[in-house]
């Protein structure tokens, strides 16, 4: 019974960064822009969050700065893809290189040549927890799941959502109604950057307490896999994130347990699950029709 509580707590903790990033992916792809750069944006957010959180000695300010940093770096992707109709995959890959590169470069300048930040005194707090760890809920996990509800309401109940998804299905139709596709897509990319940045910080400020080179290692891509797995619907995408979070928690749980599985093999688990899920899902998904297609009048 205790183990279940522990696993649940770790699952939620590890899911939170994925949920943030995946919601960003949903927004961007629903609007018609593929955002492979989420990995880079997460990395940059993770670094910015840890660095500002360390210097200002406040993880919440760090979290906020991380979101802003993610938003700021995503402007590059928005300008390239929306204003200049660039290939979205290439721009996204470039962003991944920039995000990671910039983080390590800035870390070296700010932290005496180290490619990591110094640990914060306080992590982002847990909302509920007890001493033996059988009950725990991270504040980031709570925020993440509130975000899922809000995003769902936004997409399916408000006019902004109706227009956003239309821009990802049939941008010409949106244009013919006198609504700016560019504006919708630009804002969507920035929003996805902000969420990816927050997701990065949910990793470096809640799961661990500092930024290092490996703190974001493929989480952005796993989030994108969750977007596909969850068929672009925020609620299902969140469930997919939970599945990936669960496989991550198994890594932690089994790693501490009595069963002896080499840790390297265990660490592969989330990635193996991702690949299996994508294979199983093959052919059944329906992406937004105009996702990945630059819109030119």
């Amino acid at each position: 019974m205790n183990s279940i509580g522990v696993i649940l707590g770790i699952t939620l903790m590890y899911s939170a960064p994925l949920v943030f990033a995946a919601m960003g992916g949903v927004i961007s792809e629903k609007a018609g822009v593929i955002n492979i750069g989420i990995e880079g944006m997460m990395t940059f957010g993770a670094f910015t969050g840890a660095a500002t959180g360390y210097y200002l000695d406040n993880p919440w300010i760090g979290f906020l700065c991380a979101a802003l940093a993610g938003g700021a770096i995503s402007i590059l992707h928005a300008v390239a893809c929306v204003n200049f109709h660039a290939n979205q995959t290439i721009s996204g890959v470039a962003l991944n290189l920039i995000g990671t590169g910039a983080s390590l470069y800035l870390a070296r300048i700010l932290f005496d040549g180290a490619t990591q930040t110094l640990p914060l005194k306080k992590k982002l707090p847990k909302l509920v927890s007890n001493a033996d760890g059988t009950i725990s809920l991270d504040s980031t996990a709570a925020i993440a799941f509130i975000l899922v509800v809000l995003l769902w309401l936004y997409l399916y109940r408000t006019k902004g959502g109706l227009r956003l998804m239309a821009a990802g299905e049939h941008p010409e139709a949106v244009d013919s109604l006198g609504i700016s596709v560019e504006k919708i897509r630009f804002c969507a990319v920035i929003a996805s950057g902000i969420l990816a940045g927050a997701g990065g910080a949910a990793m470096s400020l809640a799961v661990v307490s500092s930024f290092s080179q490996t703190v974001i290692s493929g989480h952005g891509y796993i989030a994108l896999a969750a977007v596909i797995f969850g068929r672009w619907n925020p609620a299902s995408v969140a469930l997919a994130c939970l599945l990936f979070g669960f496989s991550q928690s198994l890594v932690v749980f089994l790693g501490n347990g009595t069963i002896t599985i080499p840790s390297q093999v265990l660490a592969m688990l989330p990635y193996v699950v991702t690949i299996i899920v994508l294979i199983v899902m093959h052919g059944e998904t329906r992406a937004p029709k105009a996702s990945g297609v630059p819109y030119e009048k």
Partner: protein
Amino acid sequence: MNAAHAIEMHGIVKRFGNFCALDEVELEVKKGSIHAILGENGAGKTTLMNILYGLYDYNKGQILVHGKEVHFKSPRDAIHAGIGMVHQHFKLIEPYTVLQNIVLGYEKKGLFGFIDYRKARKEIEALIKAYHFKIDLDAKVRDISVGMQQRVEIVKALYRGADILIFDEPTAVLTPQEIHELTGCMKNMTEEGKTVIIITHKLEEITQCASRCTIIRRGKFITEVAVDGCDTKKLASLMVGREVNFSVKKQKKAGTEPMFEIRNLTVEDRQGICRLSDLSLEVHHGEIVGIAGVDGNGQQELFEAISSLIMVKSGTITIHSKEIQNTDPKTMLENGITVIPEDRQKDGLVLDFTVAENLISQNLSAPQFSRHGFLKKPEIMASSAALIEKYDIRPSGCSALKCRALSGGNQQKVIIARAIARNPDLIIAVQPTRGMDVGAIEFVHKALIEEREKGKGILLISLDLDEILKLSDRVAIISSGHITGVFDAQDADKGKIGTLMVGGKN
């Protein structure tokens, strides 16, 4: 300025780079009338309307709506001024419901800033009732017929309070019954005091419903005529700038033995849904068989089954008593079948390859064009030059030009030249004149008839019923993947065919 005019456009000039799409075009539309704009493809009709609808800016000119000068920066301004447009390619979001499509961009907020669908539904239902439409507001757009999608577009415009409606090629995809309904609907609207502008290159429609007609040729204003006292022949010559020959001369001389036979063909798609069921059909030498039907009733699958692009579940396809089902496109070509595909840009041509390369693309391994895997450039160029000359592909001598640079009509000529140069026994033509203008259509029709006279069989799949009736010796009607009737073209009756097309009983 004239208050009796809903729309006035004076001296409109529009340039795309160096190309002058519209050169001092004039348009005056009387309030409460149906006004047609007639012109060949690329004449600038749609460009003119896109300017009126605020989608394009213009370089020079003046636009007045109800006597007041306007300058629209976006469709939003045009909609605000009471202009609605039903585009040729519908601007509908397929996974959305009809209701969502109608409110998109014109949403009314209710509680918590959510969209107030209930209020919208009430207003739209009232509108639908007033115009006697039949529309299911909760159906997804991807599940409804093309005719209904068009009605959704009309309601979309009316819901925004449009009193001037622009229809861009509205009948291209409709059945005869739906066309009839549409003309009725347009007349209803004018009785309500609304103004209708219809863009078309189909002459019958103009004589049927419009009162006045503006003719545009190559971006230039030609004239405005009253439709009464104008026959289609005169309209056609005004549009093209020369006499057009409508009738196609053909002698009846079909062979007795079928050269191409389809027997009890059944095709299922990946979900196991039956796309073609027990379909039988034959084509004789020297015969054109037309397949008439509403889009999406198995035409595409029929073509794909013959080309072995999809698997046949049961039944046979034979040419010269050789079975070719479930083989591959190459076998089909080798057995003397050639194809004029529906989408010339997607399936017919490699747009970024030259005309010469496209002309031999089905013949690469023929000994006259290649040896040991190397292409024989001089022979290819010579053959290409001959075909360009013979089929009048313009600009002349375009062998080295990329196909992308050619106009739609000339791209189609490349495909037809390539198809016929193979000297096939059977030509399968899918929508061979889609989106082309009278001049180019005339050329394609002549080429097909010529092949028929040579004793070839032709299977013509087209959504244009007039085209089918004009060319075919026999007409087969396809509905829900099944042939519901076969007629000799002479005694075919349009009304009866229309009923069969939508699944009615003979």
